[in-house]
């Protein structure tokens, strides 16, 4: 049997559960809207300022670093599987890569991109 068939069945079950929940909350709850209720909730104060403001670029830097490091992590997986078979050669191959990785991290750290406050 194709190994992905059970995965599809799991997805179907998850969709069914989620759909059921969404249907329930749509079907059984009351519906009473009012002007005040529809306002953005800010602890009872009248809402102030735009809801969609631009936010600090530091968050973007985090996302960017995440993307690049994520790729590096994915690079390590096939190597980790083969680790025992590759022996010393594998160590040498990965040392170079890890030195690059650590170098990149050290640079980012040094430039202060990891500083938060």
């Amino acid at each position, binding site marked *: 049997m194709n190994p992905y068939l059970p995965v599809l069945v799991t997805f179907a079950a998850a969709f069914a559960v989620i759909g059921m929940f969404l249907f329930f909350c749509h079907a059984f709850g009351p519906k009473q809207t009012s002007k005040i209720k529809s306002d953005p909730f800010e602890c009872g104060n009248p809402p102030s300022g735009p809801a969609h403001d631009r936010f600090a670029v530091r968050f973007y830097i985090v996302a960017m670093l995440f993307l690049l490091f994520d790729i590096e992590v994915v690079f390590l997986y096939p190597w980790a599987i*083969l680790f025992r078979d590759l022996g010393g050669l594998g160590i040498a191959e990965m040392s170079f890569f890890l030195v690059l*990785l650590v170098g990149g991290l050290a640079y980012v750290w040094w430039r202060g991109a990891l500083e938060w406050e």
Partner: protein
Amino acid sequence: MSAAIAFWILAIGAVSTALGVVLMRNPITSALNLVLSLCFVAGLYALLEAHFVAAIQVTVYAGAIMVLFTFVIMLLDLGQVQDRIGPPEGLVKAAVMGLLGIAFVVMVAKSAHLGITIPSTSGLTPANVARAGGNTRLVGELLFGPYLLPFEIAGVLLVVALVGTVVMAKREVDPRRRK
């Protein structure tokens, strides 16, 4: 039979969401359509027995690259910006491009000779791959064997990208610019 059904569902899903990327006005909708499209293509990879590539397609492409896109759309507050295809000359351009695209697809479909088989080079049928330790293992063996140099160069490329992005965005981290 079930492979054919899966192929058609995934293919229709991939194409319709790809159309969504190009046709939808809201950038967030485009981005989400692209995420879906990438996931459908990952499903096709799985159908083609490329398990490792399918997994990293979801992890890296849908789960990291597209997160970055979503972040930028939210960061620049572009979610509300409605982008039009453009004035009449834009529509003409769209129509011409669409026709050219259809012509291209027809050309490929005709020259690909539906039903053709190409000679196997190393006999790595899915059954043989499973016997030799699985798809991920064999891809790894290629990666750390004949493709070692490209692998290390890719590592260098990533570090260059890391340095580049930090330099580009560094002005923002400058403490003087903070509120």
